[in-house]
């Protein structure tokens, strides 16, 4: 059974006279353990889509089901609780709390779930090994490099063992070496821990690490490709082909 099912969602902005359709009838499903990328040009609606899935934004119509639960029906308090217990977030600008150490940033995700202190300590050190950040745990964000910060943010996202991890341009603020290292970690989490990851990006290289890419144009699904048994390089070439077909100003960084 699918983990995430998106059914004919629409999101409109503006007034009746000047209506913008950010999302114009998108449907697709994500199976547990899938690593999906959503690609599209600036303004194609990919971030809006992610915001709707993450319940940060509300859809105008349509339904989103996570594990059978309709999350478009959630209100107020339930929303925060839903995010806390089911989702992990990774943002482009890391969004770490600058007053807390790396350890405390990761622990915060657990402590707001009211996990006991002993369990927190165990889980944090476990996830720190997985993301290779054990030696920066006592540092503050301003003492870390961008790559380290993003891996700490990722650790915070996965430490609660969420059903779905959502990443919004996670490599956007990283240099290519850090990007590669982060994506390899994502692939590792997906492979070894069977984590379901959904990532929004406009970068073909980043997308090539996933197992499935959904292309969005003008608020609609334009096309979709799966990696299958391709190598990363072959998959990258196929992505580039679609991007070329897609036109627009999608980044063609190699």
């Amino acid at each position: 059974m699918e983990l995430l099912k998106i059914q004919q969602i629409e999101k409109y902005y503006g007034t009746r006279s000047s209506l913008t359709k950010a999302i114009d009838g998108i449907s697709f499903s994500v199976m547990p353990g899938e690593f999906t990328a959503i690609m599209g040009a600036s303004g194609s609606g990919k971030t809006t889509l992610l915001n709707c899935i993450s319940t940060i934004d509300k859809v105008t119509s349509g339904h989103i089901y996570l594990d059978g639960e309709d999350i478009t029906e959630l209100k107020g308090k339930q929303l925060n609780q839903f995010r806390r217990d089911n989702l992990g977030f990774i943002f482009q600008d890391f969004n770490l709390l600058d007053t807390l150490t790396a350890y405390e940033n990761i622990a915060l995700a657990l402590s707001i779930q009211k996990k006991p202190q002993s369990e927190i300590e165990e889980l944090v050190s476990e996830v720190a090994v997985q993301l290779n950040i054990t030696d920066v745990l006592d540092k503050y964000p301003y003492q870390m490099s961008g790559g380290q910060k993003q891996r700490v943010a990722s650790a915070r996202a996965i430490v609660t063992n969420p059903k779905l991890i959502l990443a919004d341009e996670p490599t956007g603020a990283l240099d290519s070496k850090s990007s590669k290292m982060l994506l390899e970690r994502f692939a590792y989490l997906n492979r070894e821990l069977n984590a379901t990851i959904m990532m929004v990006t406009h970068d073909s290289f980043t997308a090539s690490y996933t197992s499935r890419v959904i292309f969005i144009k003008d608020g609609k699904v334009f096309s979709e490709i799966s990696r299958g048994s391709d190598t990363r390089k072959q998959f990258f070439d196929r992505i580039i082909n679609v991007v070329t077909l897609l036109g627009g100003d999608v980044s063609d960084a190699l």
Partner: protein
Amino acid sequence: MLCKLSLRNIRRSLRDYAIYFFTLVIGVSVFYIFNAVDGQAAMLQMSESKKKLIELLKMVLSGTSVFVAIVLGLLIVYASRFLMKRRSKEFALYMTLGMSKGKISAILLFETIMIGIGSLFVGLLIGIGLSQLMSALVANLFEADMTQYRFTVSLEAVVKTITYFALMYLVVILFNSVIVTRMKLIDLIQSGKRSEQIRLKNPVLCVIIFLLSAAVLAYSYYQVGWNSVKIERNKMAVLILLGSLATFFIFWSMSGMLLRIMMSMKGVYYRGLNVFTFRQISSKINTMVFSITVICLMLFVTICTLTSAFSIRNSMNKNIVELCPADFEIGADHIVDEGEKVPPSIEELYKNCGYDMTEGAESYVNFCTYYDPELTLGKSFGECYEGIKSMYPFLSYDMPEEIVKLSDYNKLMKLYGREMLSLDDGEFIILCNYKSMSNLREQSLHEGFEIAPFGHTLRSKYSQCRDGFIDLAAERVNIGIYVVPDNAVDETAVKTEYFIGNLPNGSEEEYNAGEALMTEHFTTVSEAWDNTQNSYAVGSVFKSEIYAAHIGLGAIVTFLGLYIGMVFLIACGAILALKELSESVDSIPRYDMLRKIGVSERDISKSLIRQSGLFFLLPLLLAIVHSIFGMKFAVFFLESFGTENIWQSITATSVILLLIYGGYYLVTYFCGKRIIKDKK
């Protein structure tokens, strides 16, 4: 164009300016209210002597206003500089666009003028409204009639308020333009980027400094609270300085220690949002140790001032009933310099002028007190004399003690309606109601303690001083009178002659007529005697005079306490609120992030309550501890007024503190909550 820009700026940064504006408005209205007191009082029906007191009150208040204006001025300069700093980015933008510093100054000038005029207008309106209520307080304090009262506006106070605040705004404008000319573009651009460095202080050092400061505070507390009598001015200054420094270092070390302690309590630290809350608090305290110290000290001064002021007033009201139980007292001192002639009795003085001394009095007692040059204050201390003298070198140990005959004293007590005393032959009693003095006397006093006035050996009946007095007074100022059996006195050694009594009190007119008659006679008599060129003088005291002076003093003290206390409270609240709110603005992204990872609104509100709560509470707590010992010191000085009602004063102080300081806390919390509220 510039005007438009300034107006937009104000509207856009309304939430920053709200507290600033709020503070200015309160400042203006408080300033008006206290300066309009005499205008309000003019509407009340009161006697001439009370009107004179109002004049005095006005003078004292306008003197204090200069001090208050300085405090408010400093506060406004602080607040405006604080707001300026928050706008570095904006100024940077103007400068990169090529706007000259002159133009930026002009924008600021315009903004200051707008806010100045706005706050003056609103503040004066509120002040004029509230000052009508103030009239009720004036009427109550001066026991005046309010029936003729109508709504009034004191033009003088309005002009004064506008002048003072215009001056303050001028200073602000000057400061701002100095800052603008000193601004460098590179600093402005980088101002936001500078990531906050979190340096954990060395915990060992923190503990050492904390313990040291605590020890210094304990020493100062001890000196002030239990060693009060030995403190002279220089030592007091040293103690205040030590206390202030220790306060600073307590907060300094606490900011480091508090977090460490919390971090070591892992169960608590990693529960819910606690990690975040504690980090926020500790970074806040870290960056404003100095401000918190100043606030703590200001709160301390406020608490002590208000409590003392209320206490003086409360006790006075109670004291006067007890300590002034007759209507008039005429006294004549008989101890004269060598070579001067011994004065005649009061009765003779009146006769010389053709009056009857008793005319106008309904009931009276006429008696003398005596002295033995051998029985001095020093002798009364017996074997404790040397010890006491080394501690209090400035008491007049050679002054002869006042001695009264038992029968005379009991006659007086009958007039006063107070308890009479009884003595066996060879016994004496010491009367004293000034507590510090009775404490000293009781060091040597014990049952059977012997003195020998005029060659008669007498033993003390009690081991304590009895509460009592002869002179009419408003305060407890009797430092000691001996009551001895009639036969133990040499009647030639007169110290003072008293003529104490009541006026006819059938109606107010009758009473006033009696008082007028007595006053007229006494004036003639005392002038006639003064013309004889003698150093000896006769004096008179009327109950009405004591009442008037007492009411005036009580009212002036109350007004001063309220004035200074309120201004200080406003200043403290404003500084904390400004800092806290700007902190909230800076923390918006943090709260957004917390929401994204699923923290509930309830937990966020809870965290905010704790943050601002602790921020407001911390200086208050230390200030309260300071005040406990500060008040112990103040009580030592308030003793002559009596301090039985101290709890009542503390309650009144707490209410005012809760209203203003608590009000600022609530405003801060709700504004902060609005600032970090989810935009969607």
